[in-house]
């Protein structure tokens, strides 16, 4: 099915090879989990298998043979994979592309929507679906032409636990036994029973290990965990507050934002509060309201300095640091250094933050060109620049590998122990376990 010999790829505009020296044979019907630390080129390799590296976007070396008539691919973010406005049209899109006639298209659309457990009619607006439902629809679109090879690039990384479970169930139910599957996933505990083989890529190039899944329980698992892979049986270290919490920084009373109402919340110095709950319960909206970015529709957010949404932006940044789920939305400058110096941060403080968050080598880089982990660190650094006492983070560990995850949690714990208040909106149970001193769980329609 797949033969790679000494395969390598270098993206245009880059000095380093994204992958290099990969020798790999995958037979029909195998289920392969592709592992490796961030930057080992897993995603590039998957693109190569899918024939998605056009000649004009870089340079290839070695041999790449893929013997599959149709290849289905699912990426992380459903929003940048959905093409059409209606669910049925979305699945039909791929079939139209390869020339299926209309009378064959619609029965197949219905069949594959049923297989992935899509519970709505064909006219359902794709924009009205939850992330997990959208990703199941993307999977249906990939499966519709009956691909012989299915490539999955962290298909559940952008989903909450319930959405991720939906997609994994759909994968179990809808993929035929003779379909070859290659999967990339950071959190492997949930997918180990889906695969028959684990291939570990070496960051410098080549395949480091090629083993059956059960071997991950041994020393290899420990090694991979140290390299940034989430391996079952290697939980992250937990940090709980050494001191009792201090004074109250913020409190809410009968708070309503948009159409949602919230239980009363108190945020104290030297305490880490986790806000959890299913998608759509208004966790992020609560974070925005606490951060003084949304005006309450009713009730109030109280602080010693008055309601945060009335503060001028400068004052706000000095009191509350907000870190958004998507770091890029917060970037305004052309270099990492300018980003931190924004608003008159003293040069000494900028250097301190650059060193502390290991961004010093990237001081001259454009913030938009940073990798996911680097961009996350920069967004935290910008929120800390004006030394606010309260830090509010929305899904800070989203899509991060284990190494960045541990770094972030360590740093948030250290900030908390320095007397900062830390509010983390998260659907990651490990964050709650490792960091939270108190948890606020919001109901589906609080």
């Amino acid at each position, binding site marked *: 099915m797949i033969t790679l010999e000494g395969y390598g790829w270098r993206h245009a*505009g880059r000095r380093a090879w994204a992958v290099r020296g990969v020798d790999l044979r995958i037979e029909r019907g195998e289920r392969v989990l592709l592992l490796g630390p961030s930057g080992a080129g897993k995603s590039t390799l998957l693109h190569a298998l899918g024939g998605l590296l056009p000649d*004009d*976007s870089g340079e290839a070396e070695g041999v790449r043979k893929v013997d599959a008539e149709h290849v289905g691919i699912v990426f992380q973010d459903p929003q940048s994979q959905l093409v059409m406005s209606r669910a049925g049209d979305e699945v039909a899109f791929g079939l139209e592309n390869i020339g299926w006639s209309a009378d064959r298209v619609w029965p197949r659309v219905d069949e594959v929507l049923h297989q992935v457990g899509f519970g709505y009619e064909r006219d359902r607006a794709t924009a009205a679906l939850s992330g997990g439902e959208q990703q199941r629809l993307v999977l249906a679109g990939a499966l519709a032409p009956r691909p012989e090879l299915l490539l999955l690039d962290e298909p559940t990384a952008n989903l909450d636990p319930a959405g991720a479970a939906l997609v994994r169930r759909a994968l179990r139910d809808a993929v035929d036994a003779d379909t070859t599957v290659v999967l990339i996933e950071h959190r492997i505990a949930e997918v180990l029973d889906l695969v028959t083989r684990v291939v570990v890529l070496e960051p410098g190039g080549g395949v480091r290990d090629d083993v059956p899944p059960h071997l991950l329980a041994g020393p290899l698992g420990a090694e991979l965990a140290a390299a940034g892979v989430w391996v079952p049986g290697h939980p992250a270290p937990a940090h709980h507050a050494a001191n009792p919490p201090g004074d109250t920084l913020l409190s809410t009373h009968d708070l309503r934002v948009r159409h949602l109402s919230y239980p009363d919340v108190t945020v104290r110095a030297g305490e880490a509060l986790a806000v959890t709950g299913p998608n759509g319960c208004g966790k992020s909206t609560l974070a925005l309201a606490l951060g003084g970015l949304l005006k309450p529709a009713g009730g109030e957010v109280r602080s010693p300095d008055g309601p945060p949404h009335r503060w001028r932006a400068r004052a706000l940044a000095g009191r509350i640091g907000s870190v958004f789920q998507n770091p890029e939305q917060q970037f305004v400058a052309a270099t990492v250094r300018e980003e931190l110096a924004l608003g008159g941060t003293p040069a000494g403080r900028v250097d301190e933050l650059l060193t502390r968050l290991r961004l010093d080598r990237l001081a001259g880089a454009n913030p*938009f060109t940073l990798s996911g982990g680097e961009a996350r660190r920069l967004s935290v650094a910008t929120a800390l620049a004006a030394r606010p006492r309260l830090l509010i983070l929305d899904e800070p560990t989203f899509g991060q590998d284990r190494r960045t995850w541990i770094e972030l949690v360590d740093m948030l714990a250290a900030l908390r122990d320095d007397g900062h208040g830390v509010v983390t909106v998260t659907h990651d149970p490990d964050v709650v376990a490792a960091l939270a001193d108190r948890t606020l769980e919001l109901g589906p329609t609080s």
Partner: protein
Amino acid sequence: MTNYRWRTVDIVVASILAVAFGVVFWAWGLLWNGPAGAIFGSTFPPAAAAIYGVWLLPAVLAPLIIRKPGAAIYTELVAAIVSALLGTSWGISVLWYGLAQGAAGELGFLLGGYRRWNLGQSLVAATFAGATAAGLDLFYYYGDWQFSWKIAYVAIVVASTLLFAGVGGHFLTKALAGTGALDRFPSGRSRDLV
């Protein structure tokens, strides 16, 4: 540049520019009919054209980014269609405008043989696009104006287009390339190797 065929990424990104500018066109129409009309309508109406250049930005920006023949016409036309879908006061006439303005911008880059994408070429394209738009306006809307106003109007529209579309398009492309968003395009590869 010998490959003139549009890749999927060319089509989608040109369309995204068009959609984004369609929304800007729509908002600009409100600005034109509202504040700009109110401020300058009571003093010197041709001066409102100072904001005009934004309407012609896609006709220069899209070719600078995509570097394929037809990028100016396609993007300006689709942007016009999107603004019509959102509802403007110019109805279907924006389609004829989009087509004419896009073709004028296209001509600017055609004269460079689709090989030159520098500031000079952007200014040439901007001049053509601005002059075309101003001419259409005088023909359809401002035929009743006195001659000196007509001259002033053309001059202000062209100057605004040179500024927003010519200079603005050039530097916007550079800024976008700096963010790595244009890595799939030749225009984004002028960055240093990293």
